[in-house]
């Protein structure tokens, strides 16, 4: 039954719910007000009802209206009539009531104030009071003579009211004025026909109001502090507005930043300043004087000379940035003007200070660090792309370029932005777009602050639909057919945030490109000198070199140059955040030149923003990548997708290996086959390097991929040689290649050699001698082909782990191995065999080899005590002797404490001791070995974890060093850009102290070492 009625009401289009009046009491309230009759609006009140419906929160508006009516009492009919007839009043009042509970409450307490919103008196874009008018109103409110000289100058105005009453009066006057401004600002939300008051004018009106309030507060302070009469000592006192008020761009709720100047600066003028801050603070807004010289610690009031002395001698760069907005607003006008005249020239020379660059960078970082991580998406003011960032970027450009160009010195952000555009320091379109975004963000900020007159810069959470709907309506977002108002708001917010997030690229970098490329059409350009200055400010150690690269990349009229001009602003912004922007830009130039004729190269960078971004991260960190990239450019395409299932992150090593062998198999000539294999390996190496640097692969995945591709290359090379031999003559042996060491364990790094053994077996009818000779020549040929000189990282095949080492034969028969191991084998050889794994050649032979060595490496019953001691002794000697000169045991990844050798020897000792009895221990992998040793109860969980962590840390660090330096190395760099690069490659954040990484490295390896000493060396815990 009730449902039926609801449906019927909706159909007739006039249900209260459709008007947004969803509360159960709405109908009754409306009836009382006389606007609703049963199921439809009273006829003359229809316009009122529509205005209610447009109000950001109709229920709030209605509820407050009801309270207002009650408070009006007998005067209500007059207001009611005015609402029905005066569209302006209607729009202003009803939008206001639905937007601001705080101002609604003010109206309820002072019901007659509605008259100031009526069309004959209200503030409109065509009728804006000036500062003098506002000052007169507030001075009158505190009983001061508006016609007198300004308070703060000798004989200036004094309040007539005592402080306590004056504060009450000033608060009233201030709130009344705020009400008028807000109503004018919101008018068009209530009645769309009313003219819009642009955000700049709202901000300017609020700034005027704040100035007027400061003047009135000063009049009160003067009465309180300065004795009246002729005997009064001549005191001159001026208030300089800073920050947003100084820039004539105040928002609704904000501290007002000021600086005080006085002659003399004594106890009296200090009292004056304190009284002013107290009066203004209680009546209107908090007054913040912390931007003064020496901040909180400094004297509240200084003389002009003292100010000038401070700024000349002591001030820091950010203080000049703040002074850019200084404007005298209250007190003695002559003193105020003298202050600004004295300080201004210093502001515009600040960019010449030695510490300018460092300070500016530090300031930017501080701003970004300020944001709470959970608020980053919703912060309007702080954080990258927030209001503060726009303001900061604009001020920075003003300081850098304003020295020589007085036209860009405005203290108002929007004016300055326009001037920068007009002066060619920023693209004109960029300036206009950014201004639009800035206005949008300010609008949202204003609306959020109006609600309760609270200082907030936080967008409602995405799940808080009610608050978002309210905000969307208050910001005059309308459904666009596909999305509701909230949807439109969020979409606009995202668009604007995206636009502003690219602010640095647009403000800082694009104009640089226009300078270097001297393209026609851009008639306004910075000079080279300005461009250099800017690049240095952004972190390039050698800006001239960087300009040279930019010039080379963008010179000429080719299409490529044109694309580079649009791309580079983004790329430079990203490079600026890498450990080595200079090297990164050079690498980018080399890659771009090498790929100049690759048609898709620039298109990919242009169309896939993320590719460009990742490429910069990689080039600014690694010296290994650029060399590979110019010869394997196709990998760039993989950078487009870094998702969980992407090819970059998850290419299966086995698949890589299969396709590599298939591709190489198509070549008959071994040399051609190896060239093909090399190229595929280069591709895979680069893929792994990129994925590793971008943090997409775990250390075991990196090792597995690098090992698999090495094995595949080896297999293909052997296959190719064997095919060629079979075609050209008799085959006298079967041959197998056994992987040893890191290759056998599938734990290769970027720079590891491949350790192998060769084993052969005569075919039917062939003699042992022939078999060995034939096999040796095959093995020699494979090694020769692989180690042929090439620009790629080398493919050295190392067979030194074979019996008798370098003096033994390269290839042995299976029988020869058997005889050797039966007779001669030393324990270190058994240990080396723990990592033996068939890699290539005849599988049957390989299996027989494994069968042969298993009893050697997995001795039943383990090791005798003397043998264990022997291994410990060998290791102790290795510890003492093998570390290269100049290496640091604490940070040597391979031979250092808790490094690779430490952990691997520990696992291997456990295997030699127990793998004979515990078959699960029979693995060539260090991490698997650790896990199994724990499973078998040979290691407790903590020890196994500590060893695994040490090994993983050392492996990652070793890979990172190789990636950063471009050539293999086992020692962590000691300091400098290389160490910073390694820390970045390990995933540490930019700009931090690389010492943090070293400390972490040493901590993890120290723990591993403690276990090694206990488990391997058997020392007491």
């Amino acid at each position, binding site marked *: 039954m009730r449902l039926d009625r609801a449906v019927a009401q909706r159909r007739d289009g006039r249900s209260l719910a459709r008007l947004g009046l969803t509360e159960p009491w709405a109908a009754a309230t409306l009836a009382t007000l006389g606007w609703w009759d049963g199921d439809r609006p009273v006829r003359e009140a229809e316009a009122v009802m529509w205005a209610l419906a447009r109000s950001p929160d109709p229920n709030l508006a209605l509820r407050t209206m009801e309270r207002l009516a009650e408070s009006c009492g007998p005067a209500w009919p007059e207001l009611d009539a005015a609402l029905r007839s005066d569209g302006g009043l209607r729009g202003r009042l009803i939008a206001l009531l639905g937007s601001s509970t705080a101002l609604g409450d003010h109206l309820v307490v002072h019901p007659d104030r509605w008259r100031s919103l009526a069309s004959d008196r209200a503030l409109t874009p065509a009728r804006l009071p000036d500062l003098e008018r506002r000052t007169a109103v507030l001075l009158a409110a505190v009983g001061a003579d508006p016609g007198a000289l300004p308070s703060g100058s000798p004989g200036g105005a004094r309040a007539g009211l005592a402080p306590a009453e004056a504060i009450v009066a000033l608060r009233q006057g201030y709130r009344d004025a705020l009400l008028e401004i807000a109503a004018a600002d919101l008018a068009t939300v209530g009645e769309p026909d009313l003219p819009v008051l642009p955000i700049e004018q709202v901000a300017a009106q609020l700034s005027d109001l704040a100035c007027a309030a400061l003047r009135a507060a000063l009049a009160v302070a003067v009465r309180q502090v300065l004795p009246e009469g002729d005997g009064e000592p001549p005191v001159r006192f001026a208030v300089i507005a800073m920050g947003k008020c100084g820039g004539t761009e105040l928002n609704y709720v904000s501290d007002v930043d000021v600086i005080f100047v006085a002659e003399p600066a004594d106890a009296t003028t200090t009292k004056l300043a304190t009284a002013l801050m107290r009066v203004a603070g209680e009546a209107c807004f908090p007054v913040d004087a912390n931007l003064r010289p020496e901040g909180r610690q400094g004297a509240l009031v200084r003389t002009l000379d003292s100010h000038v002395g401070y700024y000349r*001698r*002591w*001030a*820091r760069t950010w203080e000049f940035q703040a002074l850019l907005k200084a404007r005298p607003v209250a007190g003695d006008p002559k003193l105020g003007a003298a202050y600004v005249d004295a300080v201004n020239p210093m502001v515009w020379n600040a960019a010449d200070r*030695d*510490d300018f660059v460092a300070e500016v960078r530090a300031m930017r970082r501080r701003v970004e660090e300020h944001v709470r991580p959970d608020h980053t998406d919703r912060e309007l003011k702080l954080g990258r792309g927030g209001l503060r960032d726009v303001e900061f970027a604009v001020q920075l450009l003003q300081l850098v370029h304003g020295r020589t160009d007085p036209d860009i010195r405005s203290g108002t952000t929007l004016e300055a932005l326009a001037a920068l555009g007009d002066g060619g320091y920023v693209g004109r379109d960029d300036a206009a777009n950014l201004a639009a975004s800035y206005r949008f963000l300010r609008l949202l900020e204003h609306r959020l602050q109006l609600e309760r007159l609270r200082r907030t810069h936080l967008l409602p959470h995405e799940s808080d639909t009610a608050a978002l709907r309210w905000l969307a309506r208050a910001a005059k977002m309308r459904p666009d057919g596909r999305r509701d108002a909230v949807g439109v708001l969020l979409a606009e917010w995202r668009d604007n945030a995206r636009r502003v997030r690219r602010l640095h690229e647009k403000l800082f970098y694009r104009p640089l490109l226009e300078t270097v490329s001297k393209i026609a059409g851009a008639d306004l350009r910075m000079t080279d000198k300005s461009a250099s200055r800017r690049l240095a400010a952004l972190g390039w150690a050698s800006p001239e070199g960087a300009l040279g690269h930019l010039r080379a990349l963008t010179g000429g009229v080719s299409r490529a140059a044109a694309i580079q001009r649009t791309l580079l602003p983004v790329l430079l912004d990203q490079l600026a955040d890498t450990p080595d922007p200079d090297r990164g830009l050079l690498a980018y130039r080399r890659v771009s030149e090498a790929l100049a004729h690759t048609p898709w190269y620039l298109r990919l960078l242009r169309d896939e923003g993320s590719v460009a971004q990742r490429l910069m991260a990689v080039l600014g960190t690694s010296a290994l990548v650029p060399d590979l990239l110019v010869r394997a450019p196709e990998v760039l395409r993989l950078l487009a997708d870094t998702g969980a299932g992407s090819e970059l992150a998850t290419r299966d090593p086995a698949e890589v290996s299969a396709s590599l062998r298939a591709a190489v198999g198509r070549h008959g000539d071994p040399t051609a086959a190896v060239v093909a294999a090399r190229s595929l390996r280069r591709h895979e190496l680069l893929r792994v390097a990129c994925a590793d640097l971008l943090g997409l692969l775990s250390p075991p995945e990196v090792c597995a991929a690098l090992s698999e591709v090495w094995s595949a290359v080896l297999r293909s090379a052997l296959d190719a040689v064997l095919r060629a031999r079979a075609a050209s003559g008799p085959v006298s042996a079967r041959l197998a290649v056994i992987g040893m060491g890191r290759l056998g364990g599938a734990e290769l790094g970027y720079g590891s050699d491949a350790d192998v053994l060769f084993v052969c077996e005569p075919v039917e009818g062939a003699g042992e001698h022939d078999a060995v000779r034939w096999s040796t020549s095959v093995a020699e040929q494979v090694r020769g082909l692989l180690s042929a000189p090439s620009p790629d990282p080398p493919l050295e095949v190392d067979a030194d782990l074979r019996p008798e080492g370098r003096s033994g034969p390269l290839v042995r028969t299976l029988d020869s191995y058997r005889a050797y191991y039966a007779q001669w084998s030393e324990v270190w050889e058994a240990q080396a065999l723990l990592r033996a794994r068939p890699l290539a050649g005849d599988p049957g032979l390989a299996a027989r080899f494994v069968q042969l060595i298993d009893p050697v490496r997995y001795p039943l019953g383990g090791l005798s005590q003397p043998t264990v001691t022997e291994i410990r002794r060998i290791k102790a000697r290795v510890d003492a002797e093998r570390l290269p*000169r*100049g290496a*640091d045991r*604490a940070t040597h990844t391979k031979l250092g404490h808790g490094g690779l050798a430490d952990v691997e020897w520990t696992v291997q000792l456990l295997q030699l001791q127990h793998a004979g009895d515990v078959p699960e221990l029979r693995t060539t992998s260090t991490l698997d070995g650790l896990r199994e040793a724990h499973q078998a109860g040979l290691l407790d969980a903590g020890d196994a974890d500590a060893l695994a962590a040490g090994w993983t840390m050392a492996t990652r660090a070793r890979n990172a060093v190789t990636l950063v330096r471009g050539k293999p190395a086992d020692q962590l760099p*000691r*300091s*400098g*850009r290389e*160490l*910073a690069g390694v820390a970045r490659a390990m995933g540490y954040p930019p700009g931090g*102290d*690389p*010492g943090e990484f*070293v*400390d972490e490295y*040493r*901590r993890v390896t*120290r723990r591993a070492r403690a276990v090694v000493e206990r488990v391997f060396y058997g020392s007491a815990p």
Partner: protein
Amino acid sequence: MDRQQEFVLRTLEERDIRFVRLWFTDVLGYLKSVAIAPAELEGAFSEGIGFDGSAIEGFARVYESDMVIKPDPGTFQVLPWENDGGQHYSARMFCEINMPDGSPSWADPRHVLRRALSRAAEAGFTCYVHPEIEFYLLKNLPSDGTPPEPADSGGYFDQSSHDAAPHFRRNAIETLESMGISVEFSHHEGAPGQQEIDLRYADALTMADNIMTFRYVVKEVALTQGVRASFMPKPFTQHPGSAMHTHFSLFEGDRNAFHDPSDPYELSATGKAFVAGVLRHAREITAVTNQWVNSYKRLVVGGEAPTTVCWGHANRSALVRVPMYSPGRSSSRRVEIRSLDSACNPYLAFAAVLGAGLTGVQKGYELAEPAGDDVWSLTEIERRAMGYDTLPQNLTEALGVMEHSELVAEILGEHVFDFFLRNKRAEWDAYRRNVTPYELATYLPVL
């Protein structure tokens, strides 16, 4: 060039200072100094001064030893020594130790303390410290192993006119004050020749700098009085050692985070957790707070030094004491750690105590009941029955405990942790080889 740097340069000019001593501290707590001419200082501010780090204990190894010292202008102080014309001629600044790329050296004890303080700052705390420094005035400093001779024969709080060094305390205090180090309290201690001077509280980093200055000043002033000062923890078998009882407090902004007027001890939950942290980790940090072989000769039962891990209220035998002499004065609520001796490295020792206490705060450790008894009077078995741990009895035991402490490794950083252990092990080994007079006196006649 920032403001403080300019101030320093101007002062040098105005006061005609001829030498600027750049001070820093090695890992063991020895003060190091490089003197430069004022003309070099501007460069030192911007680029620092390179030096060979391998020459300094614990800083670097020989082949990678380039390091840079950078003066901290906030620590500038004209030294009170005068030339013949009555003019001050030198000044000092403490320095930071950097790597050649400008990043901080993790071997610098000042950096260790800075890191500890920034960890506290992240938790919203600033740390204030107030030490009571004891030392001996001696007639001589024999280096052949014979016992020294005290400069006087006074006793606790004695106001006696001594034969040697009658003006020592006055001169020392005047000198300290002239260097901006406020002295709160000073008196003659219990043993002949023993003095105590308490410094007015300051933030931990400033105080560590002050202590380094203090030791230097006291030794210099003693020399002018014809005597010698020593901060050795225990120079006399028969007299008490030289402690550096140190009061710690944490502030949140202007508010003393240790103060809670509603608690019977006026000690807040934060304060209790801090004490609990210091107690739980006391054995781990002892090697740092008491870093010499000789330090442990002080920590013996019957001396006036703590030997057991417990806390008390008015209990002077406890490791941690929560004094109660200023009821209602919230800003002075603090806890006194009594194990530190006057020869510790103050940067490392403060970092260790702060780190242990802060761990207690962050992990919300529970504080056990206070020890009411005079723990010295308990028997060993009684102490154990009551659950009191014993502090390490010698350096090697302390090192053994420290070696297994992740907390101390974290506080000191791996570099200092590793160096400290190696260096102190070597110190113990060197000591162990020696046949002491005690052994000769005890064994030779009877064995």
